[in-house]
């Protein structure tokens, strides 16, 4: 249907892309294509969702439209046409990105004219995407400065009204603030306001909510939806999270390995997916309750905490009275052998701090923490496997390190254990010889889990272990965690902001807000009959 319609309504197409290819120089000198001949078109005011796992080429496609590809990328396409203008190529004029100089200059000029006025883009990480040293006002003004002839008072008024439209309270006060003074959600709202300030025809959103927590994510998505409909702006919304696209998009396109797998209206794709990959993707999305396990949770306590409080003192000098910030206040909990204990809450609610205190990474806390297994200590898996594994070392070394430190095993025995654990975490043996940087995100997290489990601890702390991962990988890792837990009768404390994940994996859940416990109980009880307002809000 889309094909026929697309053809018939050619003149109404706002954006048309024909056979776009993007390639990077590879390790052995050959080019590595990341986008392989993608074509699609977009009508005015339409919201197109592009979904796919990392490496599927969805972000590169978006960047290619905006002309923002990294310097070492080469682009090849039959044409990108936007609003009657040729952004690149054209069938007769098929040039490499780095090719003919005058052609490149023409493209550059057209793009500079359009970017910021008729087409704009927002990005995944609003903190780094905003210039840290310029005030919000300065940055917001820039598109007006470049594309309009407004006076400075008019510009300021426009900025304030754009901020207000983006549902930011106290817009005037924001003008002279800097990005780092805002919260994540506010920053993304500023990005949106900035992108929408010139009432563009096209807005490209590249995973704009991935870095945000659940509540904020929902707000941002509905904001984009609202603004796009108000101003009749077409949107390309890129996400790895299918559930986000479902409520937002008119049309959805699924990408894999640089190619379009499936395309159609949201209803079509979500209700009647044709391709296996799409089906897989949807199944992988975590949902539903935890499957019942045969083995009952024992009554032995592995960890208990009574009235744990953590206060951060921020000392600004030798003479200043230190500022105090109560990160965790009087939290008590008890975790039993073989149980998966979840802690949820928005970012900043103190859940990570609590976890660090439980792990023993914080020295200054009040209250008592009792751990059964004090010999090996607790092990922990961190959110970001990019920073939690030593980038200078090989995987084998990283996995051996806990054995070296805690056991008297010989070199051979250690290597044997590494091979075993790699097998258990479903990693190929060669991984041991690689650096972490050569692995994919999922592989890295497996390595992190392997490193935590290699000393066979009873208790493992998991700090958002799947938040940074793709949906399918997320599912695989969760499955792995559950399997390992069953096989070794492990106890997990699982921290997450993702309610679906928590529901899927945890036996008991504790909800935290501003350092305090809001609610605590059996997972299903809590999800089905939340007692507190805040929990309801979290559940959405």
């Amino acid at each position: 249907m889309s094909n026929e319609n697309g053809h018939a309504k050619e003149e109404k197409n706002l954006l048309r892309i024909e056979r776009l290819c993007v390639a990077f120089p590879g390790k052995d000198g050959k080019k590595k294509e990341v986008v392989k001949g993608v074509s699609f078109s977009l009508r005015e005011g339409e919201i197109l969702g592009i979904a796919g796992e990392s490496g599927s080429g969805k972000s590169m496609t978006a960047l290619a439209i905006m002309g923002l590809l990294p310097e070492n990328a080469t682009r090849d396409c039959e044409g990108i046409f936007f609003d009657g203008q040729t952004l690149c190529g054209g069938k007769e004029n098929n040039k490499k990105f780095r090719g003919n100089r005058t052609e490149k200059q023409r493209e550059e000029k057209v793009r500079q004219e359009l970017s910021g006025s008729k087409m704009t883009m927002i990005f995944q990480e609003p903190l780094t995407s905003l210039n840290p040293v310029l005030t919000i006002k300065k940055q917001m003004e820039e598109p007006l400065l470049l594309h309009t002839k407004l006076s400075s008072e008019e510009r300021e008024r426009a900025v304030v009204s754009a901020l207000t439209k983006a549902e930011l309270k106290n817009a005037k006060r924001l003008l002279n603030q800097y990005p780092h003074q805002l919260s994540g959600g506010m920053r993304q709202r500023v990005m949106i306001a900035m992108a929408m300030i010139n009432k563009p025809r096209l807005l490209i959103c590249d995973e704009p909510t991935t870095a945000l927590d659940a509540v904020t994510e929902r707000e941002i998505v509905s904001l984009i939806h609202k603004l796009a409909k108000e101003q009749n702006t077409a949107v390309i919304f890129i996400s790895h999270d299918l559930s986000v696209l479902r409520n937002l998009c008119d049309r959805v396109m699924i990408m894999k390995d640089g190619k379009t797998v499936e395309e159609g209206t949201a209803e079509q794709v979500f209700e009647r997916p044709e391709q296996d990959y799409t089906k897989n993707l949807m199944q992988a999305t975590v949902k539903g309750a935890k499957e019942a396990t045969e083995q009952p949770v024992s009554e032995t306590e592995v960890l208990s905490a009574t009235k744990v409080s953590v206060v951060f003192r921020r000392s600004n000098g030798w003479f200043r009275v230190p500022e105090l910030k109560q990160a965790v206040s009087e939290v008590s909990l008890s975790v039993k052998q073989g149980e998966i204990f979840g802690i949820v809450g928005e970012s900043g609610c103190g859940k990570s701090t609590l976890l660090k205190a439980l792990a023993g990474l914080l020295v200054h806390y009040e209250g008592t923490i009792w751990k059964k297994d004090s010999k090996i200590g607790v092990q922990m898996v961190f959110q970001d496997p990019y920073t939690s594994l030593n980038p200078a070392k090989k995987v084998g070394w990283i996995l051996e390190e806990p054995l070296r430190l805690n056991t008297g095993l010989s070199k051979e025995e250690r290597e044997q254990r590494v091979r075993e654990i790699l097998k258990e975490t479903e990693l190929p043996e060669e991984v041991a010889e690689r650096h972490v940087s050569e692995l994919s995100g999922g592989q890295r997290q497996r390595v992190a889990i392997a490193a935590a489990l290699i000393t066979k601890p009873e208790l493992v702390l998991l700090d958002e272990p799947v938040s940074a991962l793709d949906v399918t990988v997320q599912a695989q890792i969760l499955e792995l965690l559950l399997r390992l837990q069953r096989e070794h009768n492990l106890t997990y404390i699982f921290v997450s902001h993702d309610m679906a994940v928590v529901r899927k994996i945890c036996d008991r859940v504790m909800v935290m807000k501003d350092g305090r416990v809001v609610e605590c109980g059996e997972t299903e009880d809590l999800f089905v009959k939340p007692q507190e307002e805040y929990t309801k809000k979290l559940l959405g």
Partner: protein
Amino acid sequence: MRYFLKKTVALVITLLVAAFLTFLAFEVIPSDAAMAKLGMDATEEEIEALREAMGLNRSLPVRYGDFLLGALRGDFGESTQYGLPVTELLADRFGVTIGLALLSFVLIVGISVPLGIFAARTKSKAGEGIIAFLTQTMMAVPPFFLGMLITLLFGIVLRWFTPGAYVPAGENFFGFLGFMIFPAMAVAIPKIGMSVRFLQSSLKEQMQADYVRTAKSKGCGRRRVLWSHVLRNALVPVVTFLTMVMAEILAGSIVIEQVFNLSGIGRLLAVSISGRDYPVVRAIVLYTTAVVVLLNYGADLICRYLDPRIKEI
């Protein structure tokens, strides 16, 4: 206010440590002011008598205490070599050293900023190679040799300036400039090499940043991206780096002052050390320390202005 109080305390501590270290140094090295002053023909008794008169044979803590008391009153003693108050002796040399430092600094900034930007922006391998070679060569030439080469080339062969014909800036500014530009070149060239490298790497790093992509998506051209976004961000480490360079220059370019016959702080220092003129050396060390520390604070303040995030830390 607290910031300044804190910084002042830190400065004072550093100064005390530096002064004490200088005291210790003079304890250790052979010869002292009395011996250096009286020369070859003095007898042991005469040297001892002068030591007595100069107060050199008092114990270290007593002398240190004496210095502290004097310093509190703003009195840094008298040069043992020249018999002049140290402050007066130093004040006369400041002009030269500060003039040299400022001019070299202007040269460093004026040359290395455009060159660094070019180096960061160029995509040609050859361009990068040439810059790398050039900067490394600049750094590899010993300063005394460079000074000599410049004097020979511009002073003797080309006769663009007269070696030794230093004119104070107050008398004839252009005459001052026409002479000082050459020693300033000798000071600046190695530092330019370092600065270009530093600028190149920090600009390159900033050009990869996410906000550059945002700026482009707003329709900024290459030039605007560079000037109103990248440069401002790259400035913070560059300012810190340049302060370090400035401190190095101000702390005394002994060699260059020797080669170009400038009577600045550096030359005074060399003469004072060989004359064991302790009060002068100590004053210069204190001056150097203060300059280094104060420049760091200056850089701190500039960085705070440039990068609002720093205030929070």
